[in-house]
């Protein structure tokens, strides 16, 4: 939710400029410090958070500053132009502007632009552009004329598009507007004619741009109070030709047309714009934040003392003239999130401090689209820092690992990962592990041949992963039918969704035995009650399996054993396991995983009838195994508990009952299950009777102790 905070006045003394307002507010090379250029003779450097000036420089009496001062980010020097042609360059230590470096140019300067990461540019009034270095090398060089006569530059902006500087400037001639886009990597100047959407001519009052992937979005605020958007292609198809661009209306009547001192517009981020101006003809001027996506007014703030129709937006601060003072209004836009709605983020930030990027845009951070020029800038800084960091010797191990994942071989990754896991765990260990898994999965998706199974196994076994940390992991494993990873995931991840559990179940039931044969599956949950004997029976019972026959090498042995044990096995057919131990181990992982019935049931309905029969058969087998001993538990480590087995039987029957009763084999199974359950119930009712009689016994005993009002007892004291 967008939020304008309480503003504060930056200048204690009124700017001597009158209604025109300051010439400009520009960022300096230090965060939180801004150069404010008076329309008279003064440049002041302010520290915004302290609300105090750090330095002030003035040109001589009689001279006048014509272009706002900027900071050369490469050198940290400040540049200003006075009397249209005289360039001054100074730094913080200088006191007197008269004594600093001076260069007199041959043409009149419109603006100097300076942004992070590139050298400053000088835009001349005739439309020519020069780099500062080139200009200083030869100040009196000839400056060509680019734009036609009577064409006047109205507005200009300099920004980086994919590390290449781009300058855009808008000119006006007889009510027609033209946009020039100068790209410096190709030194192409494209000219566009802006076509206004409506018939009647109206004056454009303010412009603002943001950079997208393919287009520069130019927003303009016209005198009829509407905001229009024009998309200027970054890579024009026919650069040299004069093209026409159509404006589309974005917002209607955000300000009244007849504002006293004009209106201003600034793009805050992808969806938000700030508009300065009077919303209705009679009302006071306001600063309002609009959401362009939903065309809603987010917040607004009245500026009763009037303003100058100038608005600057840097970082999270909006600068404007309020009355005679330059006012800063911090702006904040939190992405609405569930946590925010639930109040968890409420007041999570101390209002006193302004942490730089408190607007997190997930799309921008993933690089889909660049937000406003400001987030572009901050992103650039980050990128630069990252590059610097990678040069330094002490790179965080995690970053290095992530880089390794993107390019190295599987084996190398494995080695690196092992190294990383061996190091000490940081508090954010689990997020790093999550990132690593996501990185690996991302590469898996990109390169079908890449499947770092061992790495993934290792990562899952760190016990810190959860399903939500690496949402793609189980999907990938399902795709690759990697039952081993799936088993591990079911055992380790605490929050596997029911749909995925069910997908695993389907896979485990349908996967061929030959595939299972090769899989290295953790068998500890079945080892104690599953003798590798019953493969023989299995052949008979599981003929409806897709790959029913199991060519195990110990098949002969088991046959031999089966021969020996035949009488017993025949006598009690149901005590033999209908599954191979490996499949049983996989299914046990499912039985032991957490689920919610409501979410599981719909998915269970999708299991093919024969598979659900098989699963039921297995559950019945486990149930019988459980009831073999008095404690009603299965032997072994981490076996499914009786409750889990019962729950799954109920679930499976609930989901598939109508289907299962139609299958002859299943019918037989159900009947025997019914018989067994019935016998259990009769046992339980008998137990109940016994318990009741014991309870009476206890009651009798108590009565004897308590109910007598008077007795004489013998007590020996020791």
């Amino acid at each position, binding site marked *: 939710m967008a939020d304008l905070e309480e503003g504060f006045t930056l200048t204690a003394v009124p700017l001597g400029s009158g209604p025109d307002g300051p010439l400009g507010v520009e960022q300096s090379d230090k965060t939180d410090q801004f150069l404010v250029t008076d329309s008279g003779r003064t440049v002041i450097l302010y520290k915004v958070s302290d609300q105090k000036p750090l330095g002030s420089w003035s040109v001589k009496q009689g001279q006048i500053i014509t272009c706002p001062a900027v900071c050369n980010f490469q050198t940290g020097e400040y540049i200003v132009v006075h009397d249209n042609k005289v360039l001054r360059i100074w730094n913080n230590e200088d006191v007197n502007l008269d004594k600093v470096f001076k260069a007199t140019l041959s043409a009149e300067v419109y603006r100097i632009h300076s942004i992070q990461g590139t050298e400053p540019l000088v835009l001349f009034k005739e439309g020519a552009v020069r780099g500062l270095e080139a200009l200083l090398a030869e100040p009196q060089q000839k400056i060509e004329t680019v734009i036609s006569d009577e064409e006047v530059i109205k507005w200009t902006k300099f920004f980086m598009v994919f590390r290449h500087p781009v300058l855009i400037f808008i000119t006006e001639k007889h009510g027609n507007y033209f946009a020039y886009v100068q790209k410096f990597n190709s030194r192409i100047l494209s000219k566009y004619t802006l076509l206004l959407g409506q018939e009647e001519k109206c004056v454009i009052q303010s412009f603002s741009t943001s950079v997208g992937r393919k287009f520069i979005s130019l927003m303009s605020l016209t005198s009829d109070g509407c905001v229009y958007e024009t998309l200027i292609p970054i890579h024009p198809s026919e650069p040299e030709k004069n093209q026409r661009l159509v404006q589309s209306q974005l917002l209607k009547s955000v300000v009244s047309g007849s504002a006293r001192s004009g209106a201003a517009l600034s793009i805050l981020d992808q969806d938000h714009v700030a508009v300065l101006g009077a919303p209705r003809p009679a009302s006071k001027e306001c600063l309002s934040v609009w959401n362009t996506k939903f065309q809603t007014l987010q917040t607004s703030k009245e500026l009763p003392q009037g303003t100058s129709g100038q608005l600057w937006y840097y970082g999270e601060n909006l600068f404007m003239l309020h009355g005679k003072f330059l006012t800063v209004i911090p702006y904040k836009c939190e992405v609405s999130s569930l946590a925010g709605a639930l109040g968890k983020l409420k*007041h999570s930030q101390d209002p006193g401090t302004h942490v730089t990027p408190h607007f997190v845009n997930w799309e921008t951070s993933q690089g889909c689209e660049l937000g406003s020029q400001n987030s572009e800038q901050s992103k650039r800084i980050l990128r630069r820092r990252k590059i610097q960091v990678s040069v330094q010797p002490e790179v965080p191990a995690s970053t290095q690992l992530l880089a390794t994942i993107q390019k190295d071989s599987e084996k190398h990754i494995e080695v690196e990962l092992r190294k990383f896991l061996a190091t000490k765990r940081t508090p954010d260990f689990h997020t790093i592990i999550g990132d690593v898994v996501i990185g690996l999965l991302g590469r898996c998706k990109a390169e079908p041949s890449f499947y770092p199974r061992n790495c993934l196994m290792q990562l899952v076994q760190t016990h810190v992963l959860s399903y939500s940390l690496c949402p793609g992991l189980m999907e990938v494993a399902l795709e690759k039918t990697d039952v081993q990873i799936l088993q591990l995931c079911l055992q380790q991840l605490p929050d596997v969704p029911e749909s995925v559990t069910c997908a695993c179940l389907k896979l485990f039931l349908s996967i061929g035995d030959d595939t299972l044969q090769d899989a290295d599956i953790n068998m500890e949950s079945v080892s104690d009650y599953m003798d590798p004997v019953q493969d023989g029976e299995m052949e008979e019972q599981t003929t409806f399996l897709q790959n029913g026959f199991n060519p195990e090498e110990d098949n002969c042995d088991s046959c031999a054993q089966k021969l020996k044990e035949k009488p017993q096995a025949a006598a009690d057919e149901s005590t033999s396991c209908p599954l191979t131990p490996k499949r049983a181990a996989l299914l046990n992982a499912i039985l032991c995983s957490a689920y919610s019935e409501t979410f599981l049931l719909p998915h269970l309905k999708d299991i093919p009838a024969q598979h659900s029969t098989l699963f039921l058969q297995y559950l019945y087998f486990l149930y019988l195994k459980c009831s073999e001993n008095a404690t009603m538990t299965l032997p072994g480590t981490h076996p499914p508990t009786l409750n889990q087995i019962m729950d799954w039987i109920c679930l499976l029957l609930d989901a598939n009952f109508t289907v299962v009763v139609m299958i002859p084999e299943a019918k037989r199974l159900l009947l025997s299950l019914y018989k067994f359950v019935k016998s259990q119930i009769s046992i339980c009712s008998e137990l109940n009777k016994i318990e009741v009689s014991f309870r009476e016994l206890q009651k009798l005993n108590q009565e004897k102790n308590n109910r*007598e*009002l*008077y*007795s004489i*007892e*013998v*007590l*020996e*004291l020791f």
Partner: protein
Amino acid sequence: MGEFNVHRVRFFNYVPSGIRCVAYNNQSNRLAVSRTDGTVEIYNLSANYFQEKFFPGHESRATEALCWAKGQRLFSAGLNGEIIEYDLQALTIKYAVDAFGGPIWSMAASPSGSQLLVGCEDGSVKLFQITPDKIQFERNFDRQKSRILSLSWHPAGTHVAAGSIDYISVFDSKSGSAIGKMLVDRQYMGVSKRKCIIWGVAFLSDGTVISVDSAGKVQIWDSATGTLVKNHLVSNADVQSIAVSAQEDSFVVGTAEGTVFHFQLVSVTSSSSEKQWVRTKPFQHHTHDVRAVAHSPTALISGGTDTHLVIRPLMEKVEVKNYDAALRKITFPHRRLVSCAKKKQLLLFQFAHHLELWRLGSTVATGKNGDTLPLSKNADHLLHLKTKGPENIICSCISPCGGWIACSTASRFFLYRLNYEHDNISLQRVSKMPVFLRSALQILFSEDSTKLFVASNQGSLRVFRLLEGGFTHLHSFQPQSGTVQSMCLLAVSPDGNWLAASGTSAGVHVYNVKQLKLHCTVPAYNFPVTALAIAPNTNNLVIAHSDQQVFEYSIPDKQYTEWSRTVQKQGFHHLWLQRDTPITHISFHPKRPMHILLHDTYMFCLIDKSLALSSQQRCCCGHAVMQFGLRAQPAHGALVPCEGGVGGARGEQQMALKEPLPNDKTLLYNPLPPTNESDVIRRRTAHAFKISKKYKPLLFVDLLDEKTLVAVERPLDDIIAQLPPPIKKKKFGT
């Protein structure tokens, strides 16, 4: 120690009356509790929750409100329309003032303690000024439509919230005008109830008003705007009481379902200063309505119809693990309600309005430990003696010979002569009571039943000679000049020479009955006396204090005995000190002067002074200590009076107490020794404390003769059975 025939008596049909109000006084750390029969009890929370004073009830005086004001003055108000102030020194009612507003439902003292506000049946709120010796009516607040059931002052004293039926009024306390009215929703779980009674209100200093009502809601209001801020539905039944802590960071409410809920002011997020009231803990220590709650700095106190006073410590507020860190449930009065005529094997039970006399049965059989012997003669109910008038009995006594019964209410003293002719009993009331003998706090007969000692509430002790059919006043021991200290406990030596008397706080005075003068005063101790007795032959005075210390003082020598010094030097066993009910009775073995019998509610103990205090054997002690839970810890020295608390009078003892307690790891409760072991081992493992926890809850234990004990038990189940049924709650599976 030997075998005893124990007369296990469960026919004392005593039912404590339900708790109606509690009022906590932070200044003195005392708790006043009023019961439905009008009794008011005062518990000293600093002295192990000992019930140190009580004011007997009165049938027509149903207390509805109780509060402390002006420091430590205690007021109550009730349905008879009177405001009563209690005299905490003389243990009498100072005065009663009619408020002339019909029954009084609520009362609150102003934060400064100088004004008293009562809410009446007729809807009036009356302000009284508290003058040094009385209260003075000052003003009526704006009259409301219906009865005022609850009142609360703003901590600054500027406003008053009053809970009525269906609404809460806010008054300006200066002008007395109603400035706000907050209507409470009658809806109860979606069904409209007839009326919504505001059982309690609490005014916080930020202007918040918290109300509890009969629809089961706890509501938080903003009194400035009269809006409902938050609604907690805590119960299906009435929420009947509320108490707020002094810091206003937590409060407690009690419901008719017996649940007590703790609410705390909790920060919304860890960093912000915004706080809200959150229901944090539910406690279910009661079976019936919780009619009253109080909030001491460290504990939640609740009481209700089920007669228990529950003190639940807030563990986050308790710093050291000591007496205050344990949950307390006080059910029985900390005084004797039973007296016994040993020779005739008679028991006299004291009820609120009558006395019962029982004769114990007998048996001819013998048996071994644990046997129940067949009765040759069952116990007889001999007498049911009703007092006239609405007042409750304060105290009663039967003479050792069984020939006299004396009892007293707040205004009348009764003495009866009993004659036994075979199985018939004739009772004759001794008339012609002297004018000065109108009420007594404690009555005692001498061992030979020739003298009667009466402690009256002006601090005087009167001695009477009993004659056949009459009595004469012998002497009156007056309190020392200036002190009005009521004597609550009396003990007379078996030879009739010495009389010991202890008041509510000062030391124990010993009088010489022969010479009729004060013999000596046992040095003052900072915990109240809970029981005292004088041993035969030696004339040693045994004194039990509420901190579980037991002293033995030799009256002839006017000093502590050697045994007492040894005990203090070694210190009592920590399990002994951790018992949570006071010793209410001490008696002696008639033949063996070395044996002292003491009992509290949950155990009785025979101390054999001839044996070592603790067994040196440690073979089985670990087991036993673990069985009783708490381990010894260094901090529990804090329980033992030490350092300055004792004062100079017990210098030597003070020194002894500083030493570590050596017997902490040894055994206090003897397990049954293995029978196959030889006598030598038995003797070596034996120690002085012979404790039995077989009978509980105990109201009385005494030695009838050398081989016979009588133990009067009152099982809690029997009490619960006589209470009105609690609100039925659906339980799963029933």
